[in-house]
């Protein structure tokens, strides 16, 4: 046993890299897929709407832990493919992000009145221009609070990657706590770091909401 020192402090903070990296990976790949899913869900093609809904439902009903297990431990068993841990987490977090953000954004898009699309169409704009300039900006503002809410979930959800050997913030907390026998201090610190990560996001979302609203 040793006392809690600066080294432990540093190791927690350096583990933060993985937490951030996992969030960045999840958003980089997950957000575009989410947008695709959301657009598919409001498509005028019934088959596409259906397929997207089924996909989202399936992913949403599997626990994140299950997704991680499936891609890391399951793939070799079912398909005989050994997947590197980084690929497995990227795929799992991408799907997780895509399914939840996709559904949030779909709700935002549907909350914009049909008449807004129509008004754009009547001015001779293409469907893409109506989406890009009229509907999407309004949907974005509507979806912002739940989007940030999900982001906060995602940040905390990265702790599950520790089961595949990623020493991110939560896992580093375990290690430090075991080495120092000071769980209370260590986990309080870990919690404080998570808090410090998530609080600015919430505040930023609030200011962004006000700014995007413009008129108020």
């Amino acid at each position, binding site marked *: 046993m040793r006392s809690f020192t600066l080294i432990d402090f540093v190791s927690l903070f350096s583990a933060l890299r993985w937490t951030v990296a996992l969030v960045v990976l999840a958003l980089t790949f997950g957000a575009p897929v989410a947008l695709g899913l959301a657009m598919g869900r409001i498509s005028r093609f019934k088959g596409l709407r259906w397929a997207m809904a089924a996909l989202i439902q399936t992913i949403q009903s599997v626990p994140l832990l299950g997704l991680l297990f499936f891609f890391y431990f399951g793939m070799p068993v079912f398909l005989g493919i050994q997947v590197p841990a980084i690929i497995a987490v990227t795929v799992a977090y991408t799907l997780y992000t895509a399914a939840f953000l996709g559904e949030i954004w779909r709700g935002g898009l549907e909350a914009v009145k049909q008449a807004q699309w129509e008004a754009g169409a009547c001015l001779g704009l293409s469907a893409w221009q109506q989406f890009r*300039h009229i509907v999407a900006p309004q949907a974005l503002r509507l979806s912002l609070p739940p989007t940030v809410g999900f982001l906060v979930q995602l940040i905390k959800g990265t702790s599950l990657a520790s089961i595949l050997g990623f020493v991110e913030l939560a896992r580093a907390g375990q290690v430090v706590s075991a080495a120092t026998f000071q769980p209370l201090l260590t986990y309080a610190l870990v919690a404080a770091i998570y808090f410090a990560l998530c609080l600015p996001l919430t505040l930023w979302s609030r200011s962004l909401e006000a700014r995007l609203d413009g008129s108020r």
Partner: protein
Amino acid sequence: MALVEIRDVRKTFGKTEVLKGVSLDVEEGEIVTIIGRSGSGKSTLLRCINALESVDSGEIRVEGQQVHAKMPDLKKFRQRVGIAFQAFNLFPHLKVERNITLAPLLTGRIDKSKARALAEDVLTRVGLADKIDAWPEQLSGGQQQRVAIARCLAMAPHLMLFDEVTSALDPELVGEVLKVMEAMAKQGMTMILVTHEMGFARNVANRIVFMHQGRVWEQGPPAKLFANPETPELASFIASAK
């Protein structure tokens, strides 16, 4: 050739036949007012003219070109036909200027350097030049509707459609919108409007079209139609609208 030619148009929603064979010509520069009870098909007819609804049979031609939802240059066509709605449908996330200039910029009608001047010009025509930097929700209903009309004017349409544009307005705000429309009429704009404003129909329109049960029931110059309705349906409609 008339600017708008409507030939035996039929349209069914579900099991309800809303338009039961409507034929109507509108000449260039004409102001045609469509009146009738709700459910008579007048708004549907208007929406068919710029392909917001597709017709089941019959045909609609505007400037000789057949109109339908799958026409090859639908976007170009809609740039020539403006429509104003009962609910204004301004873009709430954009200021007045951007509401007006969005479509002209995106469709390449004007370039960026001319955008502000265009917005100023059309806003002046609806008497709202001072609202160029306002947000839609800061405006009254009447002002929002005038901005919506200005937004159409910015596309320099050959034909303007008005779908009950004053129906959602408080009575004291109706006048300012009608005044703008009257001014457009004087400048020679071809206009087709669905309205409950009998005063406007009487004073400004060249022709009144009375629709009843999905058909053109009776039509003619306002003075004649209001004074001597030929059908009992129109007579009772006029009586109830007073």
